């Protein structure tokens, strides 16, 4: 049995591509994911955005994010494909704990964490209920250290 993990793929596409070219490139990228044994859970686009620093002399880029499930061999394969495509300015593949973390929500972090996650992740997230305890312990430890430090 192949274990699927949650990954997040972030890609900056050259902004000079027109809509048609861009959507075909997005299809190509999704094909890479599918052909390496993965599935796309969610597609999230920020769209055209000014870059914080120029990349390949470009000042803006088109941001696309995929939340995917892949086997552990998947990211390397997709990454290899992403790295050689010339219309992709920047890419990043990271492990993501939750299957979907919606980018726009910053205030309701506490609402989204456990409730909607589906069952296959339960084996992974067995430490979920303990986090609060750990955080509390850490806080106490930190405070103790601070008190000692300030003396």
């Amino acid at each position, binding site marked *: 049995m192949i274990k699927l993990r949650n990954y997040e793929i*972030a890609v*900056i596409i050259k902004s000079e591509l027109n809509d048609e070219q861009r959507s075909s490139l997005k299809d190509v990228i999704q094909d890479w994911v599918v052909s390496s044994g993965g599935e796309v859970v969610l597609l999230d686009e*920020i769209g055209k*955005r*000014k*870059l*914080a*620093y120029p*990349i390949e002399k470009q000042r803006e*880029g088109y*941001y696309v*994010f995929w939340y995917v499930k892949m086997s552990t061999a998947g990211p390397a394969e997709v990454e290899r494909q992403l790295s050689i495509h010339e219309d992709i*300015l*920047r890419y*990043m593949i*990271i492990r993501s*704990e*939750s299957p979907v*973390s919606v*980018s726009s929500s*910053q205030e309701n*972090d*506490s609402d989204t*964490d456990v409730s909607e996650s589906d069952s296959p992740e339960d084996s992974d997230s067995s430490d979920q209920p303990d*986090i*609060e305890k750990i*955080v509390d312990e*850490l*806080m106490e430890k*930190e*405070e103790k250290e*601070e008190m000692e430090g300030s003396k």
Partner: protein
Amino acid sequence: MAYYKRRNQSFRKKNVVCQFCVNKVYNIDYKNLEVLVRQIGPDGKINPRRRTGTCARHQRMVAVAIKRARHMAMLAFDRGTWL
């Protein structure tokens, strides 16, 4: 004298407890720039724990998120130009 005063102020701890612990934040998304921008100084550097009061666990999460955001050109490596 003035130098020491200014130095002490800038190194003074603002929050005693970690703000992420208070708000029960379990993961920090690198795309959540509203949060990350508050964790960097005017020069674009990550604020040290001694100033923000962030705990070790959350500071590590902040640092990773900021570095990811920098890689994706959402934050600058230097100067505070993130728009």
